[in-house]
């Protein structure tokens, strides 16, 4: 306790130098927590959006389906398995048929994916109900990005050309009945959603699907021949990996920031030991062991970190709270060009683990850096220290 008081009095006495170090450290705390909070918020939002709009509780994929191989799409379909028809009838699952096709916006050919889905489905949070409205032509639902890239609006007609199951060309006019707003580009860019029954009829694939999406309340996985179940963890792994790689990238920035702060503390410690060698000698002469003197100086260094927590809390908590409430807004163009689900307003998400983890890491580094220069004290002879000599 005495050492703590002494240590506090000493660093307080150092004046501006102490507060400069404390401020840099507090900035490090706030920046790391805020930045990591942004990534957590990004992951949280992206996962939420993807679950809501695209994957729900998981997907049963036809065994030939490979989302990374567009050439596999036309061969990846099979009869909707009997094991899942019950769930589909209860609206706890939604079959989706995916086929390649081409559209001709403004006379340019564009390869797209036709996704057939039941208009009455409730598994995904996309406005498929509009596909169920009685129309004379094929009703089409597209996303905001797709509408922008093709200059299509609600009420516009577009020619779709596809091949049936035998490979014969067919073409029809469709009408855009709705433009959905979704943050998930994988269900938007280059995709046309049409009623499942229409697509099955158009391609001659009656009662067939490429995937069956199950609701979030369906917890039980069923073994289905020729179909593979992909759970949420698997389907979200790309997003997690992407955010993880971004976190690692950000780590470089934290390392530089911490390095600068640690350099300042290290310098402060070296200078303190040099300037206070007579004091060290006096303390030893008064009966303090070398270990106690080392502890005192290490404590002084580490106290910068503790004070920084307090300072960071004073200005950091309101800042972080404001940021968590209002988030950071990005222009729609930037959001749309992002390769994965990205919200227009990014709300950081902070956790106790994140705050405590950051404090632990910074404090550990500060303590180590504070200790390193004090090793000189271990070799110090009290008589020489009293004379102002340091070896």
């Amino acid at each position, binding site marked *: 306790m005495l050492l703590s008081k002494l240590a506090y009095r000493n660093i307080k006495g150092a004046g501006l130098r102490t507060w400069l170090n404390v401020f840099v450290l507090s900035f490090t705390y706030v920046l790391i927590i805020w930045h990591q909070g942004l990534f957590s918020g990004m992951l949280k939002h992206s996962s939420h959006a993807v679950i809501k709009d695209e994957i729900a509780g998981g997907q049963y994929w036809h065994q030939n389906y490979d989302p990374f191989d567009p*050439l596999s799409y036309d*061969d990846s379909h099979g009869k909707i398995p009997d094991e899942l028809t019950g769930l589909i009838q209860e609206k706890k699952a939604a079959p989706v048929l995916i086929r390649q096709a081409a559209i*001709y916006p403004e006379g*340019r050919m564009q390869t797209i994916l036709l996704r057939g889905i039941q208009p009455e489905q409730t598994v995904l949070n996309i406005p498929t109900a509009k596909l169920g409205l009685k129309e004379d032509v094929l009703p089409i639902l597209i996303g905001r990005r797709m509408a922008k890239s093709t200059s299509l609006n609600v009420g516009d007609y577009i020619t779709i050309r596809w091949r049936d199951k035998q*490979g*014969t*060309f*067919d*073409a*029809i006019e469709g009408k855009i009945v709705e433009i959905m707003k979704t943050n998930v580009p994988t269900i938007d860019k280059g995709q046309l959603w049409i009623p499942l029954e229409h697509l099955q009829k158009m391609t001659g694939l009656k009662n067939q699907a490429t995937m069956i999406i199950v609701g979030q309340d369906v917890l039980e996985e069923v073994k289905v021949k020729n179909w593979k179940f992909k759970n949420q963890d698997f389907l979200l792994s790309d997003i997690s990996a992407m955010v993880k790689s971004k976190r690692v990238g950000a780590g470089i920035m934290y390392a530089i920031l911490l390095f600068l702060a640690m350099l300042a503390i290290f310098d402060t410690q070296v200078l303190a030991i040099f300037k206070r060698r007579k004091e060290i000698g006096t303390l030893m002469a008064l009966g303090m062991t070398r270990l106690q003197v080392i502890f005192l100086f290490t404590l002084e260094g580490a106290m910068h970190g503790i004070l920084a927590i307090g300072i960071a809390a004073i200005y950091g908590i309101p800042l972080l709270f404001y940021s968590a409430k209002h988030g950071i807004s990005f222009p729609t163009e930037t959001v749309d060009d992002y390769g994965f689900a990205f919200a227009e307003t990014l709300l950081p998400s902070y956790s106790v683990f994140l705050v405590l983890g950051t404090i632990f890491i910074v404090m550990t580094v500060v303590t180590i850096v504070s200790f390193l220069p004090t090793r000189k004290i271990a070799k110090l002879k009290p008589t020489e220290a009293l004379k102002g000599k340091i070896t």
Partner: protein
Amino acid sequence: MKKLIFILLLINCSLLYAQEPSGKTILEKIDKNYTSDNQKSTSTMIIKGRRGTRTLQAQSWIQGLDKSFTQYLSPPREKGTKMLKLRDELWIYSPSTDRIIKIAGHMLRRSLMGSDVSYEDFMEDPKLSNIYTAKLIGKEKIDDRNCYVLELTAKKEGLSYHSRKLWVDDQRYLPLKEHRYAKSGKLLKTLVINEVFKVENRWYPKKMTFKDALKKGSGTEFIIDSIQFNVKIPKHIFSKAALRK
């Protein structure tokens, strides 16, 4: 008297109609013009895209209905690219990568060298009478030439185009215009033969324009620079080894 004239006219018409060849006969005559035991040709393909025009020159050897070998002569970027078709299989050799790639499955649906023609169009059985049934539906004039109008319907499932409409020169038995339709009846592609020439007692297209009807643009132009029928083609040409030579 009026009745008599009417009956005579009717008889005359039916006699005239009876003189018209059937759709099948017309189609067989077209096939006779187009196909031969083997042929060697040099052609130019002009691809008119949105960003400009590309001109490719190629030399081809064709044997029967199953075998063909094409070698691109220009431009320098495509020079040395070779294509080999053996029955329903297609290989492409690219000199820049020094690799032979088999074009199969869905890759066949891709555009041939960026043109309005797909690999599948290239792979199609050149004998239309083998794959379509023809019906004579009338007569029309195209560029002062009398033409039979034929309606073709696919004999089997799986052909790219379910139906076609051909305007066939009634003297030369060469289609001057062709429309290819989707199952729904929507026009997908058009082929216009702009110029014909006579080679070894048969009429053959000299210049034709192939166009995707759903796309804007001027389409792809094919020009037959020279063609020889029933020439001797060395066997080794139709082998994968020839692709790398």
